[in-house]
């Protein structure tokens, strides 16, 4: 029998070898090309840097392991809207502008200065000189132009539209693509190597704000030529770290870029982004020292981490909000009294306490505090069941009414447990005589049907990207977005006018005023119950210094250090 067992073992081994042979042939391709890329980068950029980088990584000093819950989708920043992708591309590529460490305040990146014409139609950027991409290509105005044209024009030779590349963030932020009516960028003129001019066909109040987004980072044109549609696995930029390798659903390795344009940065030699899907397992890995930074801490674990020696608790500023929306064109929610009544009837503080372990603040505007034009004078709808009953009676519903509440089936940072929220809402509304039936749908049909207006009450939320109020207020509440992202079917011409004015205005104070006014009107009309702004929590070991979480969820690690 031993013979038979060993036969079994031998056959297993044969299968191992068979598989090994297979993966040796096919699987090696992407890796080989990335290895080649790294080698070439080193040869062309700086012969010595290769040796140095290897020494550094071998010694294990200055190697930071950043663990997150999911893998990146694409390392070509323009072609994705995925937060796990920009977390990585932020290290490898840079845009013309960037944000301050902990806010959406703009600061220079590849452009050191910029000018805006009086009419707000011409933006001139003065670019950093002597900057090279990781592959040795010099950075210049032409490179900027190529990147923007690639996003704008599906016919562009580097657009790779046939391979399924879609630059949806560009379309959202700049009003569409080349040739479309809403597209704001008329032309891009290269004045000289270090001066570039954007000509718009209509003013866009948040044009500069857009350029700070990690999605509009500049890729080396030579790399676009070399890798073609495989650019999403071979990012080449000017950032503090250069790309080394990517093992899918496992790890992404970045090494220090020796010729980074800022002297003395980055401080780390190597950054490794690890995927650890389970929150509890990720925390164990942090405690055992296998990783240095973990994203996505359960709010319930935050207190434990804070009290623990050797670990630090960090929070991101709020950049989102969760809400219960009304279909304002459907009975009985077309009556403003009913909407206001429901707003008074829901105990927002109870929801913040129950679900976010205190790491959330109740919301009174559909805009996070700290945003341009955030209106702190708006009076919040406090928890007041008596007033709710009064308002319902006023609207003619003193005998109560039946209503459907649609619940989203997935968890989001702004809504970690939609099921519990819908139950709290159900209980709250039962107290004032509203009988709520909870409707459950799969995620895709949920999004589709709420766009088509099949719902009455629904639960959803929104997260910011470019730090501009337009992305919150216009997307969710502008009348022209009914059927595309306005699921409350809220149309108020006065609000629309204010939002349009703010979108076109160049002066930021003027914009702030317009947005503040819009929030007041919105609050009165009550098209949604704004519940909470959540503050995501994360943890690091005490060795990690200078790490500042950014509200956009992706931050540069250039200044981060490891101190024993």
């Amino acid at each position, binding site marked *: *029998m031993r013979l*038979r067992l060993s036969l*079994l073992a031998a056959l*297993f081994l044969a*299968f*191992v070898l068979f*598989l*090994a*042979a*297979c*993966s*040796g042939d096919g*699987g*090696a*391709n*992407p*890796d080989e090309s990335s290895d080649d890329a790294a080698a070439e980068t080193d040869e062309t950029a700086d012969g010595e840097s290769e040796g140095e980088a290897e020494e550094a990584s071998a010694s*294990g000093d200055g*190697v930071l*392991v950043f663990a997150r819950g*999911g*893998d990146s*989708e694409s390392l070509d920043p323009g072609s994705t809207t995925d937060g796990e992708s920009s977390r990585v591309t932020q290290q490898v590529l840079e845009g013309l502008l960037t944000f301050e460490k902990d806010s959406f305040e703009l600061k220079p990146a590849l452009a050191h200065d910029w000018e805006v014409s009086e009419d707000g139609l011409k933006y001139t950027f003065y670019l950093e000189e002597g900057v090279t991409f990781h592959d040795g290509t010099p950075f210049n105005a032409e490179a900027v132009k190529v990147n923007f044209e690639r996003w704008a024009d599906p016919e562009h030779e580097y657009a790779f*539209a046939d*391979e*399924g590349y*879609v630059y*949806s963030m560009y*379309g*959202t932020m700049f009003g569409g693509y080349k040739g479309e009516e809403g597209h704001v960028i008329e032309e891009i003129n290269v004045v000289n190597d270090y001066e570039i001019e954007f000509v718009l066909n209509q003013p866009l109040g948040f044009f500069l704000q857009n350029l700070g987004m990690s999605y509009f980072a500049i890729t080396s044109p030579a790399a676009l030529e070399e890798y073609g*549609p*495989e650019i*999403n696995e071979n990012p080449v930029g000017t950032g503090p770290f250069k790309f080394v*390798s990517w*093992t*899918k*659903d*496992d790890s992404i390795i970045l090494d220090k870029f020796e010729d980074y344009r800022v002297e003395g940065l980055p401080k780390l030699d190597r950054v*490794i982004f*690890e*995927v*650890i*899907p*389970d929150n*509890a*397992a990720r925390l*164990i*890995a942090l405690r055992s020292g*296998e*990783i240095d930074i973990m994203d996505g801490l359960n709010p319930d674990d935050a207190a434990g981490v804070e009290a623990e020696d050797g670990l630090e608790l960090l929070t991101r500023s709020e950049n989102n909000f969760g809400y219960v929306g009304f279909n304002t064109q459907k009975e009985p929610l077309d009556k403003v009294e009913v909407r206001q009544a429901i707003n008074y009837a829901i105990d927002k503080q109870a929801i913040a306490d129950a679900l976010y372990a205190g790491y959330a603040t109740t919301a009174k505007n559909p805009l996070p505090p700290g945003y341009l034009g955030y209106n702190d004078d708006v009076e919040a709808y406090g928890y007041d069941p008596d007033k709710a009953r009064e308002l319902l009676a006023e609207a003619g519903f003193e005998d109560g009414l039946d209503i459907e509440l649609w619940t989203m089936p997935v968890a989001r940072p702004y809504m970690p447990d939609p099921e519990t929220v819908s139950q709290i809402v159900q209980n709250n509304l039962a107290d004032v005589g509203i009988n709520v039936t909870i409707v459950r749908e*799969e995620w*895709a*049909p949920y*999004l*589709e049907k709420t766009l088509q207006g099949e719902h009455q009450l629904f639960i*959803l939320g*929104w997260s910011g990207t470019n730090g501009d109020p337009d992305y919150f207020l216009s*997307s969710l509440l502008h009348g022209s977005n009914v059927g*595309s*992202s306005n699921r409350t079917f809220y149309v108020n011409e006065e609000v629309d006018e204010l939002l349009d004015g703010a979108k076109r205005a160049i002066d930021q104070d003027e914009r702030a005023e317009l947005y503040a006014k819009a929030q007041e009107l919105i609050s009165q009309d009550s098209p949604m119950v704004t519940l909470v702004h959540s503050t995501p929590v994360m943890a690091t070991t005490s060795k990690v210094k200078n790490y500042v979480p950014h509200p956009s969820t992706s931050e540069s690690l250039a200044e981060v250090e490891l101190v024993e």
Partner: protein
Amino acid sequence: MVTYIIRRLLMLIPVLIGMTLITFSIVHLIPGNPAQVILGETATGEAIANLEETMGLNEPYFVQYWNYLLDLLQGDLGTSLRSKAEISSEILPYIAATFELTFFAMLFAIIVGVNAGIISAWKQNSWFDFLAMLFALVGVSMPVFWLALMEQWIFAQELGWLPAYGRQDSRDPIAAITHLYVLDSLIHLDFARAFTILKHLILPSIALGTIPMAIIARMTRSSMLEVMKSDYIRTVRAKGSGQFLVIYKHALKNAMIPVVTVIGLQTGVLLGGAILTETIFSWPGVGRYVYEAINYRDYPVIQSGILVIAFIFVMINLFVDILYKKLDPRIKY
């Protein structure tokens, strides 16, 4: 034997066609428009229409299925919507990861399970028998994710003996050749690294191997007890053979036949992706690959991933059938 294998291979054809039909239909019966899911809650109607066009989702199902089959025949598993890479090459490192884990999990399950079963049968109704069978019962019933988390908590966090996650020391990654990291490190003649990688395999292998181990132990015990009652064993005994020789030389071979079936099926199940274990130990295997694809409604990856898993399962069954014949030449087909 050869004709039998050829016949079995021919029988595979309708099975494979059936598999493609099922994987194709399942994906299209899931509610939801993939274009909507891919573009998320901020998508406009126009963008959704454009994406449907480029993905060919507008075509009738039959046309979509036919195109899918034609591509498959050319060895083209399609292109991932998420990564835009060829699935046929992208999936290989995942298969290697799953294979490595399955190999060590089954090694653990077979060595411990078969021997525990034999000894239990040998010392039937002894304290060892009771203990082993109690352990097996617990093993079969234990939720894998709970066992995995307990392992991590005790051996990684509290004792610090073993790593909590991953296939290797992430600070010092291997230059992958076959993506079977143990094999790779041996090819590099880097034994220190092989040791580290084996250490990473211990906890997930035990977590994954516990259920098959328990099943194998119970199966071996009952099959062994049955064989021990048969006439030829009595004859062997009458000839004066010692108990050890009776069991390991004469009884085991016949007792193994049902056990081999179980081993084959369990191997197939584990290779099909142990999503829970792979998720908790951050093991980038096929189960995770398909799971992530489902979240993203990455149709081509779901189709091809399930197809590959089903294919492996079918091949292992074929392999087990052939092994039967080797184990017991009396079996006729």
